[in-house]
């Protein structure tokens, strides 16, 4: 019981974080779907259209925020699922470390990808 009490405040904050990031994702995803798919003939931007779209610093900022929020929400959700299976505390700590590492790598790779494409867009 003591172990559960010690974790409880963290779990509450994570639950709030998961809810807030989920609401943010609904807004960001709606903008993404409409702008990237539903407003474009054919449903997908061709290379030239992507370059024109990504030149805007506002779009760049939105894509980076989107990447951060979706990575946070996804890995926190994966953590909740893992915890549903009643893992021992030692395993829980390893799960946290692994998911944190995956999150850092995912955000780092995604950020590199966005900035590389942004540079391409500026030179296009």
């Amino acid at each position, binding site marked *: 019981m003591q*172990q*559960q009490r010690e*974790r409880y405040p963290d*779990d*509450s904050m*994570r*639950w*709030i974080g*998961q*809810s807030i990031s*989920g*609401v943010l*994702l*609904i807004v960001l*995803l709606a903008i993404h*779907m409409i702008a990237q*798919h*539903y407003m*474009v*003939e*054919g*449903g*997908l*931007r*061709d*290379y*030239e259209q*992507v370059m024109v779209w990504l030149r805007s610093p506002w779009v760049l900022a939105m894509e980076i925020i989107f990447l951060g929020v*979706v*990575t946070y929400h*996804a*890995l926190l*959700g*994966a953590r*909740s*699922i893992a*915890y*549903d*299976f*009643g*893992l*021992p*505390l030692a395993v*829980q700590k390893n799960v946290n470390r692994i998911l944190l590492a995956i999150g850092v790598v*995912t955000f780092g*790779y*995604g950020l590199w*990808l966005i900035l*590389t*494409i942004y540079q*391409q867009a500026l030179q296009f």
Partner: protein
Amino acid sequence: MASTQHPSNSSKAYPGHVGSRPRQQMLRWVDPRHKSAGYLGFIFNRVAGIGLVLYLYMHLIVLSTLTRGPEAWDGFVAFAKSPLILAMDIVLLAGLLGHGLNGLRVALVGSGIAVKQQRTLLNGVLVLAGVLLLIGGALILVL
């Protein structure tokens, strides 16, 4: 504050509950028998969430095609218009709508808001997700 676990569960199903074996927890988690509609919605959110996490990584791989220039990306765009990919897009949209709207319901109920109306909320989520899927799916096929 409530945990991420649906409130209709017993305390034994508390996430991270140390006393039960993982295998038992897993069996309880995936067993749909004797479960309320709200709990099944909660399980749907978990399953859809796993699918969406996998899609996130697939999406990053696809977007890396943009770094290889216009020919690589435009080749992917042509491939993405095949009927199979369009059908998968509709499945993806269903997952996004279901997970997003049902997630809102879980967040509301878990916060103690509209707990008594959770059945109505679930029906509302199903109707809204269905309507948006019809519109979004039709647009995917028409565009």
